[in-house]
């Protein structure tokens, strides 16, 4: 991971291994481990409602990281990520109900199948770029949506498909409390996977293709291969996320995987920070919690004097929707590089405090 920041005082590195860690310092690593350990206790303390939110963060976060690998790191664009998420969801449910493959095996298999589908639709990506690619992936979105609606053998058509809960060694993960652990494990695993990918050969090749494809080619990187592989890895993530979503809800319907979802994924990574693993998670948390926070705000408004004005009461539902849009627009104006960048700035501020630079 590249970092321009000054290293903290007293953090001396004596081997290349120490210089190659995911976390910048030991303290950050310990804090991260402590946070994950603490999260393990969450189902005993927190309400099921908050667990639902976390599980949402998990499956959306996994899929969003995939999109960030494609858009942020490789510099390609995709407007069909929501559909790939759907492919993962339906495939996992289909594999389980039609072939009786255990669910825990279906999820990675769904990932690989979605990867194949993604690479098929990503084929034009090795030839075209920018807006043209956006349109090509838009086509993928609509073709897949149509497929979900028509292929009854696969998706159950308009009726949708049911998905069994995950069961492992006799334990059935069908409640929020139990599924929470699956979600947590998947999130941590896929994010570490992402971090490692970006600091090894393929990750560097992705960024090289994004930054300067001509010199990347001279450096021995096969452009077509990496543009396609990026689509594959991104769809793999979408497939895993989608499969988790299916087995969590227990029911998959084609209506969920529209262009709106694809755009929501894009919004998440733009708000979080393109080309940042950490930023992806921040963006997802932001987008999942924002409606909840606004819901709470609207609820409070109802209790004040404003709540007596009929026009306001009628409009409250819309205020929430508009506020989400407004927050996103403000974010793009004031922090176009995303939350990850803002976070780095805040960290630097405290590092240099009380001096400004």
């Amino acid at each position: 991971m590249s970092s321009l920041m000054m290293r903290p005082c007293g953090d001396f590195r004596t081997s290349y291994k120490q210089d190659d860690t995911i976390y910048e310092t030991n303290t950050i690593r310990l804090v991260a481990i402590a946070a994950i350990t603490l999260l393990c206790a969450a189902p005993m303390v927190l309400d099921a409602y908050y667990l639902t939110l976390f599980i949402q963060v998990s499956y959306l976060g996994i899929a969003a990281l995939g999109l960030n690998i494609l858009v942020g790191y490789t510099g390609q664009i995709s407007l069909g990520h929501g559909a790939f998420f759907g492919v993962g969801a339906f495939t996992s449910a289909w594999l389980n109900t039609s072939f009786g493959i255990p669910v825990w095996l279906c999820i990675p298999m769904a990932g690989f199948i979605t990867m194949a589908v993604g690479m098929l639709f990503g084929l034009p990506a090795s030839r075209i770029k920018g807006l043209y690619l956006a349109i090509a992936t838009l086509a993928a979105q609509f073709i897949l949506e149509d497929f979900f609606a028509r292929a009854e053998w696969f998706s159950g058509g308009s009726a949708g498909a049911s998905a069994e809960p995950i069961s492992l060694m006799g334990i059935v993960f069908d409640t929020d409390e139990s599924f929470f652990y699956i979600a947590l494990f998947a999130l941590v695993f896929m994010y570490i996977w992402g971090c490692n990918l970006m600091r090894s050969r393929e990750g560097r090749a992705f960024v090289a293709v994004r930054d300067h494809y001509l010199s990347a080619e001279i450096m021995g990187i096969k452009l077509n291969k990496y543009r396609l592989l990026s689509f594959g890895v991104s769809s793999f993530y979408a497939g895993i996320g989608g499969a988790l979503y299916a087995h969590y809800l227990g029911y998959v319907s084609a209506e969920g995987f529209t262009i709106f979802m694809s755009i929501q994924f894009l919004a998440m990574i733009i708000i979080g920070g393109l080309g940042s693993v950490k930023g992806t998670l921040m963006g997802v948390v932001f987008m999942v919690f924002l409606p909840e926070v606004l819901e709470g705000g609207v609820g409070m408004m109802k209790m004040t004097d404003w709540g007596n004005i009929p026009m306001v009461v009628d409009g409250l539902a819309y205020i929430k929707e508009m506020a989400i849009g407004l927050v996103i627009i403000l974010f793009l104006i004031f922090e176009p590089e995303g939350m990850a960048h803002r976070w780095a700035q805040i960290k630097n501020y405290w590092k240099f405090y009380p001096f400004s630079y």
Partner: protein
Amino acid sequence: MSKPILKVEHISLAFGGVKALTDVSFEVEQGAVFSIIGPNGAGKTSMLNCISGRYQPNSGSISFNNKDVTHLKPNDRADLGMGRTFQNLALFGHMSVLENIMVGRHHMLKNNWLTGPLYWASKAQQEELEHRREVEEVIDFLEISHIRKSVAGTLSYGLRKRVELARAMALKPKLILLDEPMAGMNLEEKEDMARYILDLNQEFGITIVMIEHDMGVVMDISDQVMVLDFGKKLICGLPDDVMADPYVKRAYLGIEDENEQLEEIS
């Protein structure tokens, strides 16, 4: 200094009606410093692009290490041991200097999208660290260890050129193509760069094909000089012979008078 490592035979390249190169042939001996000079638009960079695979010549052939590479893709030439730098900087702007140079090891690394992420379980970490060690040697050699962690896009021009050279060196090439390695540098930076070029030629035995406008440098460090003009080869030989050629004087240096020329060179 005997067998040719690069053999260019009757290369012609045209863009529509513009003939960038016409029937150019030359040989570069193993371990030589070979310079290509010529006025702007003479086809020097086109020649380099043909060698590195950016352009496909319309006719003619290029062989590298006794292997015909005329129709090979640029990325396959990297595997054979051909590195290059660009005239206009072509670093990966958002990567750190270290990562930029590590990209140069791409064709030697073996981890892929499945084994790379299984960093500790597979051999990926060990492999990355081994290559890191070798990359550090390159960093040491070019004296850029102080900017190792800086983002490449934020560096000064001279340093970026040096990082680009480091990235090409990390390929472990047998041949490096340098496109104006000293353009836009001050005297001190030019001297440094000339020293690095000589060092990597003599210490590592890397053959160098270089385009350069600074005649002083070209005359000082080249073993052979080729002059291109309007896509045609004018002359190719020892620096002194090339300088003595009356046509070169007229076409490229614009010097008519013998005394004036001597002043110019010294």
